[in-house]
């Protein structure tokens, strides 16, 4: 099965980019393929000029961290234990945390404001809180690239904006590459450096304002349900 043909884009350090598109178009598949979470169907992915398939799991773990939509196997972990697992690529054979590891963990907890929740079990958290914990875990992994599959689902508007702004500032301040899938197109237009618009036939990749000029967003949904207003960068429901 072909998800997307003729897809070609590159991500740079210090940039936050979003993948948008309708349900089932292959946003998550693309993201998971980029992160080598699942085998690629076709094509080639390069990471720092080296083919992604030539990286072993451990090498990749210090380069790419992921936040996925799949449920945790065990929700009996405490928040702190879960975030600590983010340091696995750096710990010794039995997983002993060094002082540096502990500092990174606390840094991640502070960034996502989880200090009060850190001794709670994951099954005691709301979906939104758990989502933030998973993001903190990815931050603790301290990789140049962070891939997030729908990081803002389950979150209220306030936390959606907060998380995206946090991701943006992390990308800009620490020169990380952040790529996420989202249905929050309007927010992505306002916050992202670049957007990849997945469509059935054509795919557009570029800065939000360039994409608006190319009328990339108009093609996204059938014209009889919603229309895109280029002046405000938002969608309007057709009455």
């Amino acid at each position, binding site marked *: 099965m072909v998800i997307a043909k003729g897809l070609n884009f590159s991500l740079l350090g210090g940039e936050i980019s979003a993948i948008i598109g309708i349900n089932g178009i292959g946003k998550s598949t693309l993201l*998971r393929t980029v*992160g*080598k*979470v*699942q085998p690629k169907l076709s094509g080639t992915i390069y990471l720092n000029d080296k083919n992604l398939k030539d990286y*072993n*799991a*451990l*090498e*990749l*773990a*210090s380069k*790419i*961290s*992921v936040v*996925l939509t*799949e*449920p*945790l*196997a*065990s*929700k*009996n*972990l405490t928040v702190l*234990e*879960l975030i600590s*697992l*983010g340091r*696995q*690529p750096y*710990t010794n*054979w*039995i*997983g002993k945390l060094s002082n540096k590891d502990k500092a990174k963990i606390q840094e991640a907890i502070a960034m996502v404001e989880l200090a009060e929740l850190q001794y709670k079990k994951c*099954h005691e958290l709301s979906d939104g809180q758990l989502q933030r914990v998973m993001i903190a875990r990815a931050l603790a*992994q301290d990789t140049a690239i962070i891939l997030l599959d729908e990081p803002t689902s389950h979150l209220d508007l306030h936390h959606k904006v907060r998380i995206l702004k946090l991701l943006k500032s992390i990308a800009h301040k620490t020169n990380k590459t952040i790529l996420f899938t989202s249905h929050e197109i309007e927010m992505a237009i306002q916050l992202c450096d670049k957007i990849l618009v997945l469509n059935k036939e054509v795919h557009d990749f570029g800065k939000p304002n360039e994409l608006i000029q190319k009328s990339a967003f108009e093609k996204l949904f059938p014209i009889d349900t919603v229309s895109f207003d280029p002046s405000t960068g938002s969608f309007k429901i057709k009455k």
Partner: protein
Amino acid sequence: MVRYTKYRFSFVLLLLSLLVCFVVNISLGSVAIPFNATLQSIFGGEVMHEFWSYIIWDVRIPKALTAILVGSGLALSGLLMQTLFRNPLAGPFVLGISSGASLGAALMIMGGSFFSGLISFSLVNDVSMAFAASVGSFLVLLVVVVVAYRIKDTMALLIIGLMFGSITAAIVSVLSYFTNAEELQQYIYWSFGSVGNLTWQQLLLLLLIIVIGILLSIVSIKPLNALLLGESYARSLGVNLKKSRYVIIIATGLLAGGITAFAGPIAFIGLAVPHLTRQIFNTTDHKVLVPAVLIYGAILMLICDTIAQLPTSVNVLPINAITSIVGAPVVIWLLVRKKKMIF
């Protein structure tokens, strides 16, 4: 860190309880031996009667040591399975390993009459039984490893394991139907489970198998912790999933297969002890859980064996019945208390 000092205290307490259970287990039995005499004998002192020393050193101590090995090994294999299959109901029985051992034993005992004397199994003794059971569990393990190579999904693997269990149970039923009463009885006695009857040599072999299983588990502590997040996350954390899965499956196979071969199929320890341990230690960290289930498994098995030998009576109850009577309420209690089974 505060956490670790707390665990250290718990471990000291646990080891002391294990020692107490061990001494109590040895001091009780069908022949009444005074407690002082038991202690004297254990610590190399002279005892009043020669046969007391014999009973303690050649019957009770091997039996208690077997109970420790069986309990620890089964509990550890249960923990490994539950984490690997992300399933709180997983245990050594689920992969079909115990079923394989049962089939081996059943063929050894009852196969003779089924094949109407084509092959003569007149030499059915403990060693050949252990051998047949080991071969049975090892064959199932081999199939599981082959299937695991082809099927990446652990849930599917779990169901395949259950199907193996059904197939072997069916074959055992057919064998039992055609066999004579005497052989059937012998098979049923084996399936009751027993931690007695092991010679020091057999005990040494079992110890070797279990030590290898424990070492493989210790190297897998880090992947096991990563697997708590799920397989995709584990891979993204740098875990070599394929290798780790093999190591964990082989460790489980060795532990569960080796134990079932020597002690028969013993139920519930593998399922109940990991849950009990997670409750008491309130952690999912395998650095703590691996040593903790080993000790809890040993303690629980020693207690079950103490009950099974019905102190001061000559009767010995089937150990499998006792572990079920003790184990099943533990699982029910955990479920009722927690309302759901979290692992």
